[in-house]
């Protein structure tokens, strides 16, 4: 628990799983969950480097901004997903591939 590498490995696993989810999921909301995993992995790295780099709190500010960005991104993405569902009656990203109905 006092090793920087432990946290970096956990973040690397989270990132790889998130990339896997983004690449393989068909459901739009499930793709969004993969993006959340990737953002969390990046955030974990920021906070870990902040802790092991002499408790420099700049990393915490970056973490806060990433969390706020994730909130904004989730709100807008879900609004878009619900709109797609109302128009096309599906949210599978491989079926909703046209710019117009």
């Amino acid at each position, binding site marked *: 628990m006092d090793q920087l590498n432990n946290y970096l490995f956990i973040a690397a696993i989270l990132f790889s799983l998130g990339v896997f989810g983004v690449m393989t999921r068909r459901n739009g909301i499930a793709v969004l969950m993969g993006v959340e995993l990737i953002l969390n992995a990046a955030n974990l790295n920021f906070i870990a480097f902040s802790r092991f780099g002499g408790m420099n709190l700049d990393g915490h500010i970056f973490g*806060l901004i990433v969390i706020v960005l994730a909130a904004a991104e989730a709100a807008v993405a879900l609004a878009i997903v619900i709109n797609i569902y109302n128009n096309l009656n599906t949210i599978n990203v491989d079926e909703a591939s046209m710019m117009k109905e």
Partner: protein
Amino acid sequence: MAEILFWFIASLTVLSAAMVVLNNQLLYSAIALLFTLFGVAGLYIYLWADFIAGVQLLVYIGGINVLIIFGIMLTNRISSVRLSQTNIQQGFGGVIALWLLIIISLVISKTPWYQVTSAEPSSTVREVGTLLMTKYLLPFEAISILLLGALIGAALLSREAS
């Protein structure tokens, strides 16, 4: 004791993250995401980031995860009990994800990271607040504008077309 708890939290995070991307039931994925976010918040506490851990609980678990569950409920016919969903190109995606993991792990283990030992602070809230109001005032204001834009955009997009 703390060491055992750390490995428990780490394995909880990683295993539920695997559930998020592998489970076929969409709602189970959302619940697994809750456990992943909770585990990451626990890791933040091990990294002495008490404020970030609190924000993670409030914004991610209280906000984003609930929003995602709302999205699932609104875009599936709940009555027809077909909340399942499928993965495509799993082999190809698995190979790329594994390759990424191997590359990143090699980089992590081979790099001599700059590390400084420091004393554990009693609380980081005051320092984070001071930094937000002095050194990082401009990003703080910019993120406020972004949140306002996201608010208006989400309301506009999800409104019934008149």
